[in-house]
């Protein structure tokens, strides 16, 4: 298991070999409120950095989740369809969204480590 990396869009990325598991952070789920629907990409879809990877909807609004790194979708969390609330309950664990096979590992260098993300959150007030 490697360390978890973060984006300023409040996504987390955990890399295992050349596969990155992606989800939204606890801060993000709290901002969203109760998640009621998730739309995940098709397996095999190629995502470039910043492409819309998934959609997460609360009672109030829809938000996009953008690909924090480039890659090919190799797995999605089908359990979210029946239990989108697990994003609220366990955003960093069972609430994961998708797995990407990385196409450019150097993109990981642009992500924040936990300490950097924590100070980023603190800067948001």
């Amino acid at each position, binding site marked *: 298991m490697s360390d978890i990396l973060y984006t300023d869009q409040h996504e987390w990325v955990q890399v295992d070999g050349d596969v990155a598991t992606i989800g939204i952070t606890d801060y993000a789920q709290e901002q969203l*409120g109760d998640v009621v629907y998730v739309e995940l990409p098709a397996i095999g879809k190629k995502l470039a950095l910043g492409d819309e990877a998934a959609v997460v909807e609360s009672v109030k609004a829809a938000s996009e989740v953008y690909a924090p790194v480039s890659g090919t979708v190799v797995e999605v969390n089908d359990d979210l369809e029946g239990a989108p609330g697990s994003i609220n309950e366990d955003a960093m664990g069972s609430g994961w969204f998708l797995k990407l096979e990385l196409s450019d590992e150097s993109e990981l260098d642009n992500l924040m480590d936990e300490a950097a993300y924590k100070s980023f959150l603190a800067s948001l007030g």
Partner: protein
Amino acid sequence: MADTHALDTIPLKVTPLHALHVELGAKMVPFAGYDMPVQYPAGVLAEHLHTREKAGLFDVSHMGQAFLRFAGYGEGLSGDAAHERVAAALETIVPGDIRGLKPGQIRYTLLLNDEGGILDDLMVTRPLSADLQGMLVLVVNAATKEADFAHIAAKLAGSATLERADDRALIALQGPAAEAVMRTLVPGAAGLGFMEMDWFDIGGVSAMISRSGYTGEDGFEISLPDEAVEAFARRLLAHPDVKPVGLGARDSLRLEAGLCLYGHDIDETTTPIEGALGWVIPGRRREEANFPGAGVILRQIAHGAARKRVGILPEGKAPAREGTRIVDVAGKEIGAVTSGGFGPTAGGPIAMGYVDADHAATGTEIALMVRGVARPARVVPMPFIEKRFHRTDKK
């Protein structure tokens, strides 16, 4: 995660319950110029479901309250004759039956412009007390209250005077437990029938209590002087069945109930007929044809409007938000969603919107263009839940 920060330069107004909202841990957002609670720590889903199961307490003090009195009020006329005068004045700008209101009765009606467009929707109450005949109590929407009150004062100049009640707060207690809760605090109010209002004494304070609401549930709306509302709200919240509910759940509750949100589902560009609100115009007013926009509206009643507000049930799980384009099965654009989201009690996505008349029949198969993909949906009757208003059997 895309995040937006509104750059508000105009200072937000607050209601007399602002400090209580903050104390309760509410997430505050700007709404209609006010800093309002969108949700409390329980969250929108829990607040919505609690309202349907027990009772929710809502702060709606941002709404506009006012008293309308006929010119010459208090100078001799009383009873029905006095009511007739103020009702006749108001009927020049709304299409509802105001003259026919019984003492203590509340009616939902619309302020119309000369094109038949809807300037606002509002509640009009005829006081029960014999001492107050010739006066009406008005409650209008927050975002439109300045324009509404200016419009009413200008249009009725000479025939009636409007007194704003900006020093009064308004809270709503909604849900199946509302009556039992109210019975513990203001026993007399529990005897009100649906869409009835009266004045009650709450610890020396004069409160207007209505059996009405915006959730599809039984409940009450309570108008109190600003300085008295926090103490009463705390007494309500002390009851184990009462939880605070924010604007987020207020919106999902009213959407499930099929009720319009002004500025979204109805506005100056929609007529009552297009908005499926023709029921607010009774036979007498249609015959008299003397309300603003009567020409347009009566023509639409006779020949049909080109479009209609309908309930929409998506077949899948994807919510369709306001602004979503509606297409027919061939992909031709036929309308747009005006309110849409997830219905916690309905258990899935629900929406309302306008479709052209050819596609407005219940059961019509349509599709919603969500993120570029046509998602199958059907036109359905509203509400999306069973309404549980308090009905008194008058045999």
